[in-house]
């Protein structure tokens, strides 16, 4: 009796083809697509790390010299203290999140728990339009509306004093309107849709049975939101805030237009300052490839990269904890 295998002339099972040969055409296409994405990201990271460390390797600056407040690239011995930019990015982002988070979470709760259908059908497209507005438009609006408004409204020093205690708070007024506050306000509008839509998804992901379970026990809707919904969706809301933070820290154009671009340490929300991104966009046209000044800008890019990688890791940790619980 002829064995079954003899009917087939060559045994393809035994051959050891290469990785790509083992895949049929559609799989090859998606494999190449996935691989090229990883390669692009990897190359970008290698390039930025390489360029970002040139300031130390080639130009001989120490880490201490970088984490300094003095930025003077045109001096005889140029100084590249990027501390004002790092702190600027942090405080402008923090200000934006402080304004935007309560508002966004409120909108998300409204959409997910309160809004009737017709209201949803207005608010949701409105949010999508928000996302679609280019940052230069927000920046331009900031310059023409917000900045003059701040300058005109609060032009004197802002002082709060009590009868007996005396002055408890004083802050210089807006000189030009270009300021930390203007930057944070513009950014807060730009990150609002991000935080809103991601926290909306987090609220919708809470099982309906938990809502009905709570309501059936005779709790009010607000008690249900406060004690069941928000704790259950907390990690999702945190993810939303971190994503908003990434977007705020990475935004360059609109911030640069309203923040005043003064390389000083942040002092008051009324004062002009600058951020990593706005300083990079402002300076890059004035530099020559390979000179210390441009190397310093690359170091700032590296810092931005570290910030965004940290937030990605943060999101992953938050989500892992959610899965674990």
């Amino acid at each position, binding site marked *: 009796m002829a064995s079954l295998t003899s009917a087939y002339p060559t045994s393809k099972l035994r051959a050891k083809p290469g990785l790509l040969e083992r895949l049929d055409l559609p799989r090859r296409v998606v494999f190449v697509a996935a691989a090229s994405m990883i390669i692009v990201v990897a190359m970008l990271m290698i390039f930025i790390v390489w360029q970002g460390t040139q300031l130390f390797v080639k130009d001989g600056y120490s880490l201490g010299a970088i984490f300094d407040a003095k930025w003077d690239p045109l001096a005889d011995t140029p100084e590249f203290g990027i501390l004002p930019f790092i702190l600027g990015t942090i405080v402008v982002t923090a200000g934006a999140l402080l304004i935007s988070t309560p508002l966004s979470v409120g909108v998300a709760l409204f959409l997910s728990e309160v809004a009737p*259908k017709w209201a949803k059908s207005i608010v949701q497209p409105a949010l999508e339009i928000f996302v679609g507005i280019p940052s230069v438009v927000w920046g331009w609006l900031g310059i023409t509306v917000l900045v003059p408004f701040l300058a005109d409204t609060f032009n004197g020093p802002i002082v709060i004093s009590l009868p007996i205690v005396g002055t408890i708070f004083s802050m210089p007024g807006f000189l030009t309107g270009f300021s930390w506050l203007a930057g944070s306000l513009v950014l807060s509008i730009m990150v609002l849709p991000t935080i809103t839509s991601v926290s909306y998804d987090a609220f919708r992901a809470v*099982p309906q*049975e*938990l809502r*009905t*379970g*709570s*309501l*059936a*026990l*005779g*709790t*009010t809707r607000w*008690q249900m939101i406060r*004690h*069941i919904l928000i*704790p*259950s969706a907390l990690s999702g809301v945190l993810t939303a805030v971190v994503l908003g933070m990434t977007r705020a820290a990475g935004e360059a154009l609109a911030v640069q237009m309203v923040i005043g671009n003064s390389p000083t340490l942040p002092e008051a929300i009324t004062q002009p300052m600058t951020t990593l991104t706005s300083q990079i966009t402002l300076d890059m046209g004035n530099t020559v490839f390979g000179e210390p000044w441009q190397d310093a800008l690359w170091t700032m890019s590296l810092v931005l990269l570290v910030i965004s990688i940290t937030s990605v890791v943060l999101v992953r940790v938050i989500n892992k904890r959610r899965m674990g*619980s």
Partner: protein
Amino acid sequence: MPITAVYPEPVLRRVEVTAPRAAVQVAARPADIKIATEHVSISYGDKVAVRDVSLTVQDRSILALIGPSGSGKSTFLRCFNRMNDLIPGASVKGEVCLDGENVMEADVSVVELRRRVGMVFQRPNPFPMSIYENVAYGPRRRGLNDRRKLNDLVETSLKRAALWDEVKDDLRRKSGLALSGGQQQRLCIARVLATDPEVILMDEPASALDPVSTLRIEELMRELREAYTIVIVTHNMQQAARVSDVTAFFTMADDRAGYLVEVGPTGQIFTRPSEQLTEDYISGRFG
């Protein structure tokens, strides 16, 4: 310790808002009728789910609602604590009276109503928190914060739900979600008991459980009958026959969605039903 002793304010147990209007009905009804529905019809948009149902439930008895899928029994059950309010497009007509007070009135507090009429769902839905916190959830939302009273209440409720012995060692450490399906369902019953209801609605409470857990839930229902009025929806006719005092048979037809065929003492419904439809259903010839 009785659960009621924990809640000192009797006002929580009664819907005050409807008292004046209810006075007439109170005089007219027999004292031992806990729930009465009058011509209740429920529809979702254009689709009618329950048509013109009138029945009464005796105090401290178990009413079973049986019938094929889509006959509107769950929908009907949900009108007792107005959970249909939460479903967009649902509208309820007719009267649902709890102790003679029409709970469908616009000025009735659904929060108070649901405290008096608790509900256990088909799929166990413990909250993602500890066993203790699950049971303490309702009382805490009612403003009970006294630690000792809460401890007592949690213990009493879990004992009454026949879960105490299995969970007493890690009340605070173990999540409600870490229990087995049957234990989760008894936890949900304990959670309802802790809010001191008068009526407990059960929507196929054992349909997601194994036979042993089902038996435990049924035993539990017989015990709870001593203190509570229970309305249960079930697909399982043996279950209805085993646990209930009164059975109501619902069915639907092409032109008549969700109507009540007959209601009567469980023994009679299962042995000498007066309607042919009921006999066909319980003997397995239909549905």
